[in-house]
């Protein structure tokens, strides 16, 4: 029986296409990774393995610029992730644990609006907004713009987690004379934690990755890592860019892996 259903589900060529899909997704990244270890000033010819471009990234003439950009990126990403996760947690509580209210569908639409408006349009609108109120463009303007588009990314895993927790737990806590605050802090919050952590990490990555919106709302001279890389590429791809790319790849990989395992742990103890 299992065999027949296996055969019915099977389609010729689908396995091969799936493998091709993985090759397409990974080949460019892996090739850049390999060439970042190339012991040659040219990006074309392979001359053996070395860490020379990583040394260039950390100690070379451009290292100060990239270090400053990395620090900016990290500060913005941490603050944007903390703020958007807090806002998303509060919103998820009200949307999922609260009574139905007028405008609930509209609120849901509003929270997801940053996902629906194309990035380039958000970038233009935000730039026009800051320019028209005379808001100084720098780290703070980038941070505010990032908080907006991080909210839906933080909201989705938190809301999904909260929907999976039956509301009897808070009810029991309340019946045992816990205040609403205690019921939340001591009972619900620990159960929501995997979703919140997952949302935080996604918001963090999304903020760290953003180029288009940052490029529009950043002031002259303020760079994040992606805008600094973009500026450097405009003068041609150099091997140190490939080293930076490989480092960022590794960072994304680690963060996504952590988020993945947190959500799996979360699903197990449900």
């Amino acid at each position, binding site marked *: 029986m299992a065999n*027949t259903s296996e055969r*019915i*589900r*099977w*389609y010729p060529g*689908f396995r091969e*296409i*799936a493998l091709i*899909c993985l090759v*397409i*997704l*990974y080949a*460019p*990244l892996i090739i850049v990774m390999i060439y970042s270890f190339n012991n040659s000033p040219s990006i*074309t010819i392979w001359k053996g393995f070395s860490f020379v471009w990583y040394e260039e990234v950390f100690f070379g003439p451009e290292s100060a610029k990239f270090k400053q950009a990395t620090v900016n990126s990290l500060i913005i990403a941490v603050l944007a992730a903390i703020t958007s996760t807090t*806002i*998303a947690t*509060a*919103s998820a*509580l*009200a*949307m999922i644990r*609260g*009574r139905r209210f007028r405008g609930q569908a509209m609120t849901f639409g*509003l*929270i997801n609006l940053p996902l*629906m*408006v*194309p990035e*380039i349009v*958000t970038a*233009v*609108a*935000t*730039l*026009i*907004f800051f320019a*028209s109120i005379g808001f100084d463009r720098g780290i703070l303007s980038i941070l505010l713009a990032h*908080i*907006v588009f991080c909210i839906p990314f933080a909201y989705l895993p938190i809301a999904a987690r909260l929907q999976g927790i039956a*509301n009897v737990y*808070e009810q029991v806590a*309340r*019946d045992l*004379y816990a205040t*609403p605050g205690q*019921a939340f802090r001591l009972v619900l919050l620990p159960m929501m934690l995997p979703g919140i952590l997952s949302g935080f990490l996604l918001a963090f990555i999304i903020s760290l*990755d953003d*180029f*288009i919106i940052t490029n529009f709302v950043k002031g002259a001279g303020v760079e994040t890592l992606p805008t600094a*890389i*973009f500026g450097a590429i405009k003068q041609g*791809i150099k091997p140190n*860019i*490939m080293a930076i*790319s490989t480092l960022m*790849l590794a960072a*994304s*990989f680690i*963060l996504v892996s952590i988020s993945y395992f947190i959500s799996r742990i979360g699903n197990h103890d449900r």
Partner: protein
Amino acid sequence: MAGIINQTSKTTDGAQTSIVDGKQHILLLPAWLIIGVLLVIPVILMLVYSFLTQDFRGGVIWEFSLEAYDQFFFDRGLFGDEPPSIEWTYIGIFWRSFLQALFAMIFCFLIGFPTAYFIATRAPQSRSFWLFLVTIPYWVNLLIRTVSMKFLIRDNGPINTWLLSGGIIDEPISMINTNFAIQIGLFYSYLPFMVLPIYASIERYNFALSEAAADLYSSRWVTLFKIVIPSVKPGIIAGCILVFIPSLGAFLAPDLLGGAKNFMIGSLVEEQFKGQAGDWPFGAAVSMILLSIIMVILLFYARAQIRQNDGGH
């Protein structure tokens, strides 16, 4: 005391009390404020800007003008005194962006659907591993992915080097700075966006339907096109929208892979704010037209979904 009794009785009535009772609006206030002030108001302001007069130092003069939309749709000659004829430059850029987004969507579907189907029919353990593999590139910086593609398809990049040394071609194939390169870039950028929603749909698909079809002598492919694909249509449409919309407004792929000649909507907009052109009202008008097109597409999508929910189950 009265409060406690009141709440206990509510619980026994079955009317739920909740720890957020009476605090819903306070909890939602930050989200309303942030998104309202930093996205809704800016979009309205952008609409206003598109009807203002260009300040040549960048920015606008607060004077009503239809100049931006006029410039988009009509050609009045070099000095603006000839009778208006249709201006095809910008409509052409929109049309080409539309076609490229469409092709990106089709290619993503052709690779993404079989991949999603294959993953959804694995055993649970290997399924989550495959899913993990497809998800990773989704979270890798788009700029870095686009640069990697640029590196790969350069005239003296690895692909050309291998083809040359393998004796398959005699001189490098010029791929970079063409529309073909943009096409590859869009396909590569948004492929994971197609796989994930289709996967989510197929995972919920009841394969007993496929078995029933096979019992009734339906061939494999008839089952695929008449049973499987119609059942997972919501996932397919969601995937198509997730590829099409960002492709239409893409900036990195046309800018890094298409070079200076091959404009798409994203590069046209960027030019007005960051580049040479510096025409803010025109940039706002182009963004507004793009946003309107996308809102129409999303509206059709929402209506189709509502109809399906009403008619279906």
